[in-house]
């Protein structure tokens, strides 16, 4: 056994030697280290992204024509465009900042802006639907988006839409400006550089893309001569951390500066740590319950109205949705013009029972509810199941992945579901009410899966008309907001098939050492002004 003892002693010595050399790690002063679950970071092409994670990276590789003030949502500030002018017909003329250059060193011209926005529509990918709302199609963008001269970009009107809606939209990923010449070099078979841009960048932002390994790491390097002023951080490193608890340990240890997508328990734990600050980005979209009006019971407005009283919104928001959502009562949030107080959700289980009985269902009925199998959806589904049981409605929960849950909703073949509308922030009533109440074509073949009312097979022509009218008003904000209010009221009175439960909140934890880290509700958080205290 001498050999064995010698072996054990040797092994112990090696392990001890290895661990002794480990220094206490803190993130360096000039590097920003971020942890996030990267499974939704699938492309870096700004015209083909839809996730919170992709937006954050793109916001730092590119600049947009205009940007929102992170402190005052809805307020539009200059970026590549130093000023803009709205003509009487709604056309917007943007004057570019002379100093603005791409990372390639070339000056940004109006032709680059026109090319970028044309590409967003012509590629026919995710950005296209965004511009289609305002009548821009592959056939008309070459005329509607054009350069007046090197420094003036013109955005003509396709269908009458309030200019403020377009300006807000241009602050998001689908409004970034791409380097036309760099893309031309990488174009293959007329793909407008799509194959290349999915994992490269051609922008004018404060950071360049050094490396992106999917589900592993993103490394951004500072552009020393960034036209908007040298970024404070030399590098930004984003690491894939799929396990929230590991992320929490790294934050507590000082190995991470910012952590996204932490689960509720870890956020609560970190909130007690004086070295960590928890920020909450109140985002766009709701966690909702949706009823298909193709279902014979849910087709009756009195049933939909009755069930809305069954849900204990306060408890759900305080317990289940804590850290994930903020209480919502109706389809336009309280901080957006168009909001109507004292309308929408109310909890009254007795009334729920009575109204359901009056509607002809004193014993309730059985329904199947679709939910994602992840937090907080599954918990939300369980809470709704318990709430509806009070009125005798027996809910069978079917959990699954995104396809199994949203697939039947997209095909309009479901009874009941919970989900979340997942667009980036809307600072105007239009986006909020359109997503949930608008349905211009209620046929299965219309395939308007991005509209919740269509998914629920529900259509109110008066509501559609009011929304269309409001969006077309270009010169009277008060009247526009008033029309949205009317649409909201009508929709609420009809017994809507979609019930908003919580407004989406994206919490993140950051080190107290960080200065100037301001999260953007449009997910376009910039990292160039971030500094660290000693």
């Amino acid at each position, binding site marked *: 056994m001498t050999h064995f003892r010698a072996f054990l002693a040797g092994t112990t010595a090696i392990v001890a030697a*290895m661990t002794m050399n480990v220094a206490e790690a803190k993130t360096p002063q000039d590097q920003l280290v971020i942890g996030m679950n990267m499974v939704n970071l699938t492309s870096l092409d700004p015209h083909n992204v839809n996730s919170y994670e992709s937006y954050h990276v793109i916001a730092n590789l590119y600049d947009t024509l205009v940007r929102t003030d992170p402190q005052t949502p809805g307020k539009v500030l200059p970026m590549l465009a130093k000023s803009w002018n709205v003509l009487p017909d709604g056309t917007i003329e943007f004057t570019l900042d002379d100093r603005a250059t791409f990372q390639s060193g070339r000056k940004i011209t109006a032709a680059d802006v026109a090319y970028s926005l044309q590409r967003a529509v012509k590629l026919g990918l995710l950005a296209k639907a965004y511009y289609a709302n305002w009548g821009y199609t592959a056939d008309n963008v070459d005329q509607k988006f054009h350069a007046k001269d090197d420094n003036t970009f013109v955005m003509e009107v396709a269908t009458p839409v309030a200019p403020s809606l377009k300006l807000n939209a241009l602050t998001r990923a689908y409004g970034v400006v791409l380097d036309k010449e760099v893309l031309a070099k990488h174009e293959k078979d007329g793909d407008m550089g799509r194959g290349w841009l999915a994992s490269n960048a051609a922008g004018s932002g404060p950071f360049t893309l050094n490396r992106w390994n999917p589900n592993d790491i993103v*490394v951004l390097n500072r552009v020393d001569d960034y036209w908007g002023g040298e970024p404070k951080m030399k590098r930004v490193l984003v690491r894939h951390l799929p396990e929230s608890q590991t992320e929490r340990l790294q934050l507590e240890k000082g190995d991470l500066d910012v952590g996204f997508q932490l689960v509720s328990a870890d956020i609560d734990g970190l909130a007690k740590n004086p070295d960590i600050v928890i920020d909450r980005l109140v985002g766009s979209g709701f966690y909702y319950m949706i009823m298909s009006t193709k279902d014979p019971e849910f087709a009756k407005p009195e049933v939909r109205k009755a069930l809305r009283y069954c849900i204990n919104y306060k408890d759900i928001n305080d317990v289940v949705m804590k850290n994930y959502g903020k209480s919502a009562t109706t389809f336009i949030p309280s901080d957006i013009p168009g909001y109507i107080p004292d309308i929408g959700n109310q909890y009254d289980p007795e009334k729920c029972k009575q109204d359901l009985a009056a509607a002809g269902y004193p014993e309730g009925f059985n329904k199947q509810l679709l939910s994602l199998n992840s937090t907080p959806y599954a918990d939300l589904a369980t809470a709704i199941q318990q709430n509806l049981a009070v009125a005798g409605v027996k809910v069978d929960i079917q959990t699954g992945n995104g396809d199994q849950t949203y697939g039947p909703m997209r095909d309009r073949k479901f009874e009941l579901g919970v989900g979340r509308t997942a667009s980036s922030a809307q600072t105007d009533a239009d986006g909020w009410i359109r997503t949930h109440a608008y349905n211009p074509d209620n046929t299965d073949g219309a*395939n308007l899966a991005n509209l919740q009312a269509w998914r629920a097979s529900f259509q109110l022509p008066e509501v559609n008309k009011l929304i269309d009218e409001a969006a077309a008003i270009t010169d009277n904000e008060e009247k526009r907001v008033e029309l949205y209010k009317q649409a909201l009221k009508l929709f609420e009175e009809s017994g809507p098939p979609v019930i908003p439960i919580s407004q989406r909140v994206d919490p993140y934890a950051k080190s107290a050492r960080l200065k100037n880290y301001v999260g953007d509700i449009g997910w376009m958080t910039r990292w160039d002004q971030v500094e660290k205290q000693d």
Partner: protein
Amino acid sequence: MVNQVETVARTPRRRSGLRKYRRFGGSLLSVLTTLFLLVLLTFVIGRLMPVDPVIAVVGPDADRATYLKVKQELGLDLPVLQQFWIFFKNLLHGDFGTTLLTGRPVMEDIARVLPATVELATVTIILGAGIGIPLGVYAAVNRGRFADHAVRLIALLGHSTPIFWIGMVGLMLFYAKLGWVGGSGRIDLFYEDIVPNVTGFLLIDALLAWDTDVFWSAVSHIILPASVLAYASIAYISRITRSFMLEQLSQEYVITARAKGVPRNSVIWHHAFKNIRVQLVTVVALSYGGMLEGAVLIETVFGWPGFGQYLTNALVIGDMNVVVACTLIIGCVFIALNVISDLLYKFFDPRIQ
């Protein structure tokens, strides 16, 4: 006469040579058939699963036109067998295609994630076999005594405790509390991109660049996940070694050797242990191969950008190009491990030659 003698002498040799080629050809054919069926089954089952990769690409809120456009671009609107045929033709040209999700070449991704897992598995197996085998021998030699019970208890715990839980507790204790090891990932983030990527194995690349800071950072990051995985390996290897050794120790040649006065250690290591080496090679090789796709939980807990996580993510969204490529690689690794085992058999056991 001389020629006749030569002819007589050569015929059996030529026949045995032919037989060898035939045997080799047969083996090769059976390996290729296995791999083909593996690819076909994985592909078809994957395509029949109720998972739609297009949703993963475009998101749940995309409009129908975008959805259909992307589906067509990815070739997912074609019949399954036609999709397989296209995939297979490309495969024969050495092209595994691109991942559906990111559009990047699958081989490029695999070249990045495989070394990470191989590095982890290698350190693990060095620890696992290096500790597990002596422990098993020690337990067998001390059968029924305290040491034996202790080793069996360690093995039982290693088998029955969820590995991700051990990983998490390990992180809390050795990383968060004691600060002895690095946290998640292969290296402290700020050391990223400092040493050139030559082999893909960070420990080796750091040594090649002679950067001790990077090397120690990599060691501090690999030691905990490797130890956690090794614990499960030790549990398995020590238990098997113990039973192999017990069988040998009860053989007559051992009793004879002891009766003749051969020293105890010599009997254990030079007589009994020598005879179990061949079987142990198989056990260790299978344990090593299993770690390629089996380390996924530890890769998730430790944020290790490895092969297991890569394959699992692809499975979840139904990215069959990736799944089939990974399945093929795992199949090939097992075949390679079998070949290596065979070679080691011959080395350890002259009778096989």
